């Protein structure tokens, strides 16, 4: 089983992002997804910067994939998408069907991302026929769905599961970070750069509930399937996705790597894993030993 670092969901200053990926080159991770998947207005790193980081990580022995933007609205979004699709070197993760169309037209293998809503074998089979060699289960799905999918997996298809991080729950046209400051998206002043792990949304009783990250809404709790690793292994999952956060990602990767190597591993935090168990996502289900 391989470990993957998912695309960076947040907007960090340029140097912070460059330093982060320089460090990732030395972390125990097999696959790194790169690219801006949330908001096309973010520009600390341009696509060419990501191509450069990709080349450096590949030189360091990492498998690199480029992730497309999840919500594509404008012609300039499509232009960026086409450039990514035509990069000629790295696998592309398609996060909406426009990307799938362009990748299939070029007859190149691709990864079917977590927002494609793949919930059944028929849809996965169609994507395999179009060139998908890897699919990421939608984070809201759990082990019951996975078991069925694994039983009839298209030949050569590798399954990836979102295993650690704040869960991307929703995407909007509206920027909720800008909204907090009474700004419109077009003149947002890039406020999200001040929140390296998103802005906490608490209930009026002070309970952490969600996170605002630009046009994306995430879970406040960190999703963590470390304790469910035996199930994931038994199901034949090929890749576990770890989602970047501003601190501690090396420790998280080390813990998952240790567990995969059969060593004891623990992470401390206010975690959830409900989706995996077919429960509300925010729940934490502790399995009886």
């Amino acid at each position, binding site marked *: 089983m391989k470990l993957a670092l998912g695309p960076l969901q947040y907007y960090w200053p340029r140097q912070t992002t460059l330093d982060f990926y320089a460090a990732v080159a030395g972390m125990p991770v097999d696959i790194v997804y790169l690219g801006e998947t949330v908001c096309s207005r973010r520009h600390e790193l341009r696509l060419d910067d990501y191509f450069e980081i990709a080349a450096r990580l590949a030189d360091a022995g990492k498998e690199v994939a480029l992730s497309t933007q999840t919500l594509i609205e404008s012609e300039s979004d499509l232009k960026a998408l086409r450039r990514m699709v035509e990069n000629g070197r790295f696998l592309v993760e398609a996060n909406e069907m426009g990307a799938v169309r362009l990748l299939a037209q070029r007859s190149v293998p691709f990864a079917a991302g977590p927002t494609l809503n793949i919930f059944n074998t*028929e849809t996965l089979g169609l994507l395999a026929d179009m060139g998908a060699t890897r699919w990421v289960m939608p984070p809201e799905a759990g082990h019951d769905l996975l078991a069925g999918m694994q039983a009839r997996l298209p030949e050569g298809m590798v399954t990836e599961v979102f295993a650690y991080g704040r869960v991307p729950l929703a995407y909007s046209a509206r920027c909720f970070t800008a*909204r907090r400051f009474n700004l419109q998206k077009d003149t947002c002043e890039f406020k999200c750069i001040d929140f390296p792990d998103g802005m906490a949304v608490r209930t*009026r009783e002070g309970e952490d509930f969600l996170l605002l990250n630009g046009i994306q809404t995430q879970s406040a709790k960190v999703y963590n399937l470390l304790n469910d690793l035996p199930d994931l292994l038994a199901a034949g999952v090929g890749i576990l996705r770890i989602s970047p956060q501003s601190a501690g990602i090396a420790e998280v990767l080390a813990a998952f790597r240790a567990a995969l190597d059969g060593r004891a591993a623990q992470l401390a935090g206010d975690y959830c894993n409900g989706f995996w168990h077919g429960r509300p996502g925010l729940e934490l289900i502790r399995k009886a030993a």
Partner: protein
Amino acid sequence: MNNDSANTMNTPPPIELVCPAGGLPALKAAVDNGADCVYAGFRDDTNARNFTGLNFDEKSLQEGIRYAHERGVKVLIALNTYPQDGNWPRWTAAVDRAASDGADAIILADPGLMAYAQRAHPQLRLHLSVQGSATNYEAINFYQERFGIQRAVLPRVLSLAQIEQVIANTSVEIEIFGFGGLCVMVEGRCALSAYATGTSPNCNGACSPGKAVRWEQTPKGMETRLNGILIDRFAEGERTGYPTICKGRFEVDSATYYAIEEPASLNTLEMLPELMRMGIRAIKIEGRQRSPAYVAQVTKVWREAIDSCRRDAARFAPKADWMAELNKISEGQSYTLGAYSRPWK
């Protein structure tokens, strides 16, 4: 290739009024008040309005289709949730049922299900549901090439200029939401309800389900909860609202406010001339969960508005009594142009 608008450069193409039918009485109300199409679903999780007491069984659907067809109105069946491995046959059976009952089109989100419908019922017209999250022409053309969809319903996230760009680059008919409840999230890309309650719009066809809702009068005011999570608290005399997560009030960075969206309704009546000029082919009215009286009133106003706009788009303006009628049924709720108007974003 459809060529019926070749000589009509100066007249807008016909625009269909697509109205909600949560049950047979609402269907009849829509038909009687001027809908061109009604849309409906079966009584289970194969559609995105899977609520207790809503939707159609076999008999009521057959009667509804007969009623509509006798009056020249089309019936579209929404099968717009995602079948999951393990319950797939229920969705294909629903496709078969819609076809044999004589539906004029089915509205789908799942590619696998589209492939099935195309294979099993090649004559059946396919519409891409808003739940398919297709927001650009590359995505829409993908569904056309692969599955022969003839119409796409756009998520409520694009501005008018962006919609125009879509229309310029596809031969798929474009349908947009014109009136009613407003999802602020991209449809098909929202798991907020799944996270809080375990009930998912994508897989279960419902958001913020009634079984998870609690209303509680407390000394601090009326509290609404979803699976125990406080969604909002209303002061004495404040207009209360159903605890949909995106319409709740929360604390962010020490401010308490509608962090995601005010509980406003979409109303694009004033944009009608522009929508027609752009070549939008259908306007959808949201509200399968609303009463037959609501459906009747909204349908009647929109029918009048569309007819009036077709007669003379240049001089079109929403009439005061239309707005008054709509305000009456929406119980004082405020209106928004949503994403169609750029500043809203």
